[in-house]
């Protein structure tokens, strides 16, 4: 979610095989310096891709001797996914970050073959997509301050995952502003 000079990204913590819950501490958000990547979908692909992006991100940093901007990272995700057009990774990625020069919030989402969805408000992905669309569409408003954005994104995620049997078992939220990143573990239902 985008706010006023800030962004927030949140995920649940469940890892499951259909109905069986395997882990309640499986984070789906990965940090690449100041760019944040949320990866939902098949766990093995989530791990594979997060590591591939870590490698590509580090290679970029060494070659270019500068940090990667969020929009650059988004294009990296897109082209990496499209490379597997006819044998895709089963994932639903989200990219969020603040542009280091302009300070402008950047958020976008992708389908599994890399079509980018640029949004100025919010992006959702995962098994609770339908529920999240409903929550975000009603709760989000422009220019929220970091603390208000935290409440909005938290309530959107919490209430959406309570209506999804496959999501839940804890939640984490990152609130990213230009000078600090706050990570909060939320109190959630455990069923």
């Amino acid at each position, binding site marked *: 979610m985008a706010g006023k000079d800030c962004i927030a990204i949140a995920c649940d913590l469940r890892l499951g095989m259909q109905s069986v819950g395997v882990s309640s501490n499986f984070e789906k958000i990965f940090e690449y310096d100041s760019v944040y990547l949320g990866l939902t979908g098949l766990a093995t692909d989530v791990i594979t891709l997060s590591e591939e992006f870590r490698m590509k991100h580090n290679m970029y940093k060494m070659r270019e001797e500068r940090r990667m901007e969020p929009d650059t990272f988004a294009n990296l995700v897109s082209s990496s996914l499209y490379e597997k*057009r006819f*044998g895709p990774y089963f994932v639903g990625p989200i990219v969020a970050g603040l542009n280091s020069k302009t300070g402008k919030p950047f958020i976008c*989402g992708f*389908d599994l073959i890399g*079509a980018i969805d*640029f949004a100025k408000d919010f992006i959702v992905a995962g098994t609770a997509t339908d529920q999240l669309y409903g929550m975000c569409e009603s709760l989000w408003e422009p220019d929220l301050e970091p603390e208000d954005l935290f409440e909005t994104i938290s309530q959107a995620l919490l209430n959406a995952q309570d209506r999804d049997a496959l999501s839940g078992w804890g939640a984490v939220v990152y609130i990213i502003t230009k*000078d600090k990143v706050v*990570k909060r573990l*939320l109190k959630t239902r455990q069923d």
Partner: protein
Amino acid sequence: MPGLGFDNYKRNQYLADHGVPMPTATSTGTTIVGCRFNGGVVIAADTRATAGDIVADKNCEKLHRISPNIWCAGAGTAADTEMVTQLESSNVELHALSTGRQPRVVAVLTHLKQHLFKYQGHIGAYLIVAGVDPTGPKLFSIHAHGSTDVGFYLSLGSGSMAAMAVLESRWKKDLTKEEAMQLCADAIESGIWNDLGSGSNVDMCVMEQDKPAKMYRNYRKPNERAQKEKSYRFPRGTTAVLAQSVRSLVDVIETTPQSMEVDA
């Protein structure tokens, strides 16, 4: 490295056979049109992207720049239209650089159709290619299997019938630029209102002979969201937090000004 990887294909087939649902790709269930006029050509598109029956993006861009004077409207699988036009764009640039000539629309058309034919329709890109080059204004369409059409007015996508109804009833020879823009916008609006796969706004691009092409992003906005009457903002402290960690991105350093010493 070059070409597309099929590494996961067999695994995904196995997964699909064992009842794991295949995620849905975003498609531009779309209305796109193009129309010639005296001295130029105009293309237009709606801005809705869908994933199944969910609206994935309410204001996406379906008009792609291939070269400054050749633009392309895309329908079908979102990733395919985006990637195939990006690829063509860079190839056209390289071609123009190596030949020292301005890119031509027929060259773009031929190259795109050969690429799509090679993939036998598996790259789901349905395109309207338009532009001006030294041989005049041009308007073509390409289907995913590689077939192409030429026309004075064309429509493609799930809203193509709604748009074509407008084009067929109102198109005439020797349209002016303004008339063509009006016609295209009305044709897209017909798709926006009457086709469920199309919606939101109208994007338009006008290409005229010997003039820079002009892109009109959100040329019409007939579906602007009304201001919410009430705020659903939660009071701070609503959400229960179990733990918190803070990563500081800036260091605060106390400094005292020091004078620099210079040897005489």
